[in-house]
């Protein structure tokens, strides 16, 4: 016991208590099931310690921190442009979307705004990173349920989106393309035509996934009515993104907030689902990919002409102040609270990432479910460990 930390010690005592209680009631012996820290179902390195009573889960202790890289401390010793390269890697599937709120917060403090063309291109790349993120989720979902074909399809069609991001930014995974006051570069020639073709491919991919996976009887019976999160519980746990919309809350920061981005200039819809179960969460994400393709298609038609960078000093010093900017990232609400003291780098950055709050519901949600459902519920909650631990 001396080797265990305080938290683990407490969990151990709690597990003993749970054991005793279960033994009294049912006269069965409890068992501890350890999932992770390296398990495909955990999307990274989450460790889940589950106490089982037969086939049912008595309680669950998610143990995170295996991917903690100390972002908030590192941002204090980096300059503003260097922080952009760092925050790419928080949610590694939707990298560009991580840069945007930080850059917007810095611009807010400096009192500048990116040119209209840069705002449009930012929104396009934001939505492309959402597609790259969520399309992998749709493929991975099949793997968690034992179907291996969807992941091949997802990797196939995701490559087209990554090629687009690489074509525009030069980075396949981590673009580091956003600058304070605009973008690093303009779009290359022929990029817009290519984007239109790829968006058609992506919509076909969505149709395929809907036929193959969502219409599948096994998928439906494994996800419908499983892991139900009621509306008020979802709000209490501070959930956001598709997980919240699947519980029937009509809440999307892209629509509800006025940011210097281009979402308000196009016609799109926020999808919600009343059920709040695993199926609803997956379905809302599928619809979001479709909406994102629509947003991108409309935006590439209406990109205004002009520069992509405003005038900013060569050495960026952000004036003293505090700013909070959050956006609707692929995983949910992501925000940065930037405190500046007029230096080259931020004094303090608080990162609010969506996955941490979304994952914090697991002890409540997994209580009483059956063992095979742990994996499907975790998959449908869809967190990325870099986003949880930072």
């Amino acid at each position: 016991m001396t080797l265990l930390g305080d938290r683990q010690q407490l969990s151990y005592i709690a597990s003993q208590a749970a054991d005793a209680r279960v033994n009294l009631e049912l006269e069965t012996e409890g068992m501890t099931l350890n999932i992770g820290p390296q398990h495909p179902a955990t999307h990274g390195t989450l460790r889940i310690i589950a106490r089982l009573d037969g086939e049912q889960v008595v309680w669950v202790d998610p143990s995170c921190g295996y991917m903690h890289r100390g972002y908030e401390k590192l941002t204090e010793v980096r300059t503003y442009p260097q922080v952009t390269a760092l925050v790419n890697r928080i949610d590694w599937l939707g990298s560009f979307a991580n840069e945007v709120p930080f850059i917007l917060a810095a611009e807010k403090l400096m009192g500048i705004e990116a040119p209209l063309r840069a705002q449009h291109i930012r929104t396009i790349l934001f939505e492309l990173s959402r597609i790259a993120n969520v399309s992998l989720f749709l493929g991975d979902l099949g793997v968690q349920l034992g179907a291996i074909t969807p992941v091949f399809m997802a990797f196939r069609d995701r490559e087209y989106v990554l090629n687009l991001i690489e074509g525009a930014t030069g980075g396949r995974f981590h673009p580091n393309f956003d600058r304070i006051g605009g973008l690093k570069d303009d779009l290359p020639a022929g990029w817009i035509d290519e984007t239109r073709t790829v968006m058609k491919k992506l919509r076909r991919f969505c149709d395929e996934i809907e036929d193959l996976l969502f219409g599948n009887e096994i998928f439906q019976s494994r996800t419908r009515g499983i892991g139900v999160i009621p509306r008020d519980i979802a709000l209490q746990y501070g959930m956001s993104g598709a997980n919240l919309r699947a519980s029937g809350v009509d809440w999307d920061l892209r629509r509800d907030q006025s940011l210097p981005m281009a979402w308000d200039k196009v016609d799109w819809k926020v999808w919600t689902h009343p059920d709040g179960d695993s199926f609803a969460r997956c379905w809302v994400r599928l619809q979001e990919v479709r909406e994102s393709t629509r947003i991108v298609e409309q935006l590439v038609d209406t990109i205004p002409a002009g520069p992509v960078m405003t005038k900013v000093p060569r050495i960026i010093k952000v004036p003293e102040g505090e700013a909070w900017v959050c956006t609707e990232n692929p995983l949910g609400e992501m925000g940065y609270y930037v405190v500046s003291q007029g230096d080259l780098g931020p004094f303090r950055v608080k990162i609010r990432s969506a996955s941490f709050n979304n994952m914090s519901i697991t002890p409540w949600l997994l209580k009483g479910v059956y063992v095979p459902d742990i994996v499907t519920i975790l998959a449908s909650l869809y967190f990325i460990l870099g986003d949880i631990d930072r």
Partner: protein
Amino acid sequence: MGLVDRGRLPKPLTQLFNMGRSYSLWVYQWGLACCAIEMGAAFGSPRYDVMRLGVIPLPASPRQADLVVISGTVTDKMAPVIKRLYEQMPEPKYVISMGSCANCGGPYWDSYSVTKGIDQIIPVDVYVPGCPPRPEALLEGVVMLQQRIKNEDMGARWRGEGSQPMALAQSAKQAVKKQVVDGESAERGGVPVVVDH
């Protein structure tokens, strides 16, 4: 294999064994961070398709694996787990360190919680640089490892000698680490290295 541990394996037989070993590598995927997605793209996607190189990315446990790909940021909390699972792999075993984080800490070089280089814990055979490396780069690393296995003297490996790290792009830092890895692999073999010139 009495012949192997006495170092008396005939050369044609060594070559035959080595060819067989190099084209049936069972990979244990250790996906940690961003690189895990690129590793997934290399191992699981139809565009890159690692199986055409004779690599099978599907073992259920490290006890059935020949090769482990450490892809991503290794934190101090994760490091003991990696060491433990590496020790469960049967000899001969190989390690590919994928990405800057696993090589040397990468963008988290001054972080308080990141292990700066997986080669502080386990010996590495091939370093694949990049943040994250493209899937093609990982495939090149696999091919380099296969070439290395083909030229390997199994007797020497059995005695704990002859583990030389390779790097796709040899930097000064990695060249320094080369010596460290040699020392570690010799320790692991449990046999004192006798250098005879």
